[in-house]
């Protein structure tokens, strides 16, 4: 079997260097065409009619008047009379017309008769959930009752984190064209190789005849895997109109209400410890919602999972609200927030520095040495020793504080196939049915191919973004970089072997004595017995060399190209104005172990981005439901707040790039870094104020409430 192993760290010429993303110029010049930018000839625009009610039965839908409106080319309904809608903004009907303005006018002419039914849209008070809460079973380890009785100190507390949305800047949607027996589908997707199969299923159509194309996409974060109802109806509208291309993209309000949310998570908890800070017991009662289907229990206690005595109960609360979708590191940010809040508050009760408590109990994690060293590194970066003070200690209106968050993630490579073609003219093509969701995938594939073939990156043409290429997995779970790098490596090694066979006779050595370096094929270690890549390629004759490479997740651990298991620690320093309740970020530091890093430049961007997303959810983001109308109150970007450039403070990222980590192979990185930041910020606020803001996000209102409770407690 050929040797696929990564070249030694100190021998790499391209991998590991800081490369600017290859599609950067297309993006920053506005020339990159996203699916929502496509305007093919004869395009029809659409508007979607959504339900104004959170729970209702549809008595009838009348589209007659809409049909005769100017410019209208087709109308379809998503549901029929008799159906129930279970959340506001659920899709009811869609109009295709020559212009968007006409489609919107026609949507207003559709008459729907609803029988309005009772709804429930808020879950923060479990006692009010009644039959909408379903117990998810109890998990017990050890003897939590006895351990809590025996504990020197027991912390009892409550925390909660609300539903937030993905808020992808490019909304969900696609352009589709159903002509004859073939469909062209241009979705904004994280899954070019699987989304077509889903569409085929929805349409009872031959998957082989659906061509999916997505060169660029404007953000997904876990919400853009499915073909979606509007994908199916968009395609049907195209068929209905004789194959005219049809564009469907959700408007912002619909995007923020039905295209995916991150579940909430609330928890009442007791944590027991010895006087010296050793954690002995955990008992939590938690609940969450991800919409009508309820919400599962986050992995609590998080990272510090092996508390010897623990009992966890969870209830899934079903709401009449838009459904959850995977959200960057599903359930982990919530788990980190809940768990580290409890540990930080326990430390306060013990009169201990929380850093000491996190260090002392590191044996409760799966990677004790790693977490210890990361905690120490992060503490140095934030200058914990100088900045930590007893909670609430300090004077004046403006208070500062520091806090800790932790993270863990898998991140092994997904199934991926890659085809590499070496042409007799010396050119190289690399094809994968993968996608670049903004992570730099295109660039990393090019780097791996160039490194392996001993060529400059400019000699490699990487083609991704359609299902016509060999299938590669969806971009979820931080599995893309491991998957595509491994399949590309293997395809390139396989192709080189074939090339060596053709070249070996001319160089007078067996094929296995050859190597590819600096655009040459040479006898190993001997640049004098060599020929240029161009000359070597000519030895192929007229036939190109085509080779495949495949990453098979079950075999990957044996091959060592990629693996799983990333740990991370983040620490925050904040400044809280106790008069206005405003929290400002001073600094956020992230220590992230990451295995072999293909491109440190884009990898760092992932971590910076994740830190900023953490700031968003810690301080700003919350989907607000109106109990009376059952609607989302802030389905826009003015009141659904995200951080802006002035809100982020200083961010320092420390990638643990070391020979020891490198030897583990590639580990996905997009998600582990998006977990601990929010927790660190919440705990820093506690340190600043000496009082817990129990519900995220720490808006001025919530901060002032927390301060007020303390005063009058």
């Amino acid at each position: 079997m050929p040797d696929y192993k990564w070249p030694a760290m100190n021998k790499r010429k391209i991998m590991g260097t800081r490369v600017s993303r290859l599609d950067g110029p297309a993006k920053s010049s506005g020339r990159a065409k996203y699916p929502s930018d496509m305007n093919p000839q004869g395009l029809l625009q659409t508007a979607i009619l959504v339900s104004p009610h959170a729970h209702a039965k549809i008595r009838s839908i009348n589209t007659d008047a809409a049909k005769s409106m100017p410019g209208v080319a087709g109308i379809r309904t998503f549901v029929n009379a008799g159906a129930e809608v279970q959340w506001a903004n659920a899709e009811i009907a869609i109009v295709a017309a020559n212009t968007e303005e006409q489609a919107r006018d026609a949507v207003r002419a559709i008459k729907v008769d609803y029988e309005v039914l009772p709804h429930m849209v808020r879950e923060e008070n479990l006692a009010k959930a009644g039959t909408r809460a379903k117990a998810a079973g109890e998990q017990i380890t050890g003897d939590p009752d006895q351990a809590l009785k025996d504990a020197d100190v027991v912390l009892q507390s409550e925390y909660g984190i609300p539903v937030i949305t993905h808020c992808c800047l490019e909304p969900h949607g696609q352009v589709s064209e159903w002509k004859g027996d073939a469909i062209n589908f241009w979705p904004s997707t994280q899954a070019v190789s699987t989304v077509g199969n889903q569409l085929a299923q929805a349409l009872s159509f031959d998957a082989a005849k659906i061509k999916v194309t997505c060169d660029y996409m404007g953000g997904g974060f876990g919400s853009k895997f499915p073909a979606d109802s509007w994908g199916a109806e968009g395609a049907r509208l195209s068929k209905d109109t004789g194959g005219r291309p049809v564009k469907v993209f959700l408007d912002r309000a619909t995007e923020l209400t039905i295209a995916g949310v991150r579940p909430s998570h609330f928890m009442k908890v007791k944590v027991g410890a010895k006087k010296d800070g050793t954690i002995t017991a955990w008992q939590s009662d938690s609940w969450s919602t991800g919409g009508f289907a309820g919400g599962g229990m986050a992995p609590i206690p998080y990272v510090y999972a092996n508390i010897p005595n623990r009992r966890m109960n969870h209830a899934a609360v079903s709401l009449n609200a838009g459904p959850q979708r995977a959200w960057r590191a599903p359930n982990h940010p919530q788990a980190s927030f809940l768990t580290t809040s409890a540990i930080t508050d326990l430390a306060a009760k013990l009169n201990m520095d929380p850093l000491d408590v996190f260090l002392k109990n590191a044996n409760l994690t799966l990677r004790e040495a790693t977490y210890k060293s990361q905690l120490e590194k992060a503490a140095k970066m934030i200058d914990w020793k100088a900045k930590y003070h007893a909670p609430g200690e300090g004077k004046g209106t403006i208070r500062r504080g520091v806090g800790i968050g932790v993270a863990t993630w898998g991140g092994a490579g997904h199934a991926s196939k890659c085809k590499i073609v070496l042409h007799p003219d010396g050119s190289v093509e690399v094809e994968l049915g993968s996608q670049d969701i903004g992570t730099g995938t295109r660039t990393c594939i090019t780097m791996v191919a160039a490194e392996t073939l001993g060529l400059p990156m400019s000699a490699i043409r990487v083609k991704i973004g359609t299902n016509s290429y060999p299938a590669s997995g969806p971009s979820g779970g931080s599995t893309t970089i491991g998957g595509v790098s491994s399949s590309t490596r293997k395809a390139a090694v396989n192709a080189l072997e074939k090339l060596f066979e053709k070249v070996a006779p001319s160089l007078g050595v067996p094929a296995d004595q050859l190597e590819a370096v600096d655009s040459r094929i040479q006898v190993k270690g001997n640049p004098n017995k060599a020929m240029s890549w161009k000359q070597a390629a000519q030895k192929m004759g007229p036939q190109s060399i085509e080779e495949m490479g495949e990453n098979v997740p079950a075999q990957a651990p044996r091959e060592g190209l990629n693996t799983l298991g990333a740990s991370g620690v983040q620490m925050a320093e904040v400044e809280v104005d106790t008069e206005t309740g405003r929290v400002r970020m001073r600094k956020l530091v992230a220590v992230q172990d990451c295995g072999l890093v293909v491109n440190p430049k884009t990898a760092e961007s992932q971590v910076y981005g994740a830190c900023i997303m953490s700031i968003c959810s810690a301080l700003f983001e919350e989907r607000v439901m109106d109990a009376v109308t059952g609607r989302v109150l802030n389905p826009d970007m003015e009141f659904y707040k995200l951080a802006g450039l002035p809100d982020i403070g200083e961010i320092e990222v420390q990638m643990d790039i070391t020979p020891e980590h490198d030897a583990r192979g590639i580990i996905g990185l997009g998600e582990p870094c998006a977990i601990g930041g929010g927790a660190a910020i919440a705990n820093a606020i506690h340190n600043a104020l000496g009082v817990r803001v129990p519900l995220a996000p720490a808006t001025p209102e919530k901060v002032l409430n927390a301060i007020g409770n303390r005063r009058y407690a």
Partner: protein
Amino acid sequence: MSSQNDSTKDNLTKSAFSRRSWLRGAGIGTGVVGAGVLEQEADAQQAKVMSGEVEISLNLNGRPRSVKVEPRTTLLDALRNRLDTTGAKRVCDRGTCGACTVIVGGKAVYGCTMLAVDAVGKNIQTIEGLAPEGQLHPVSQAFVNNDAQQCGYCTPGFVMASKALLDRNPNPTVEQVEKGMAGNICRCGTYVGVRKAVLEAAKMRGGSNA
């Protein structure tokens, strides 16, 4: 930075009737319509109602382009839907995110909050007009160098906002960059790169308006 700067009294009267239908078209309930708009509504009662498409000429990236729009069609929708000029993106469609930033009459404006008919007679610069295809404007180049983009959907808006900022203030401080870019939102979290990119672009342009 805001298109509101452009909403002079003159503009308001001219576009009163069209703005009203824009509001309706955009689905904004009267409950959130401010007093200023109600005045416009009153104006609108007296104005002749114009509907359907009219042909206008826009001065786009130095070239006159004729385009049919409805009175309610925003500049952004005219660019994206009717002129296939898709660098500016439609994200919030309500003047909060900056993804649709274009430069009109030398000022950065949100294309989603300006009507196409109000842009007649003004110089409209979109990101496509910054540099010929295949070349990069120094600001775009700085965004590449500093990896100030991930998915890239917000990037054209950031580049245009930076360009307008640097035209106005060729040597901004970090604080001025933060304030100047505060009207743009990025979901992927590229702000660290953006901050560096704008400062680098200022240096590359040698502090003079390029």
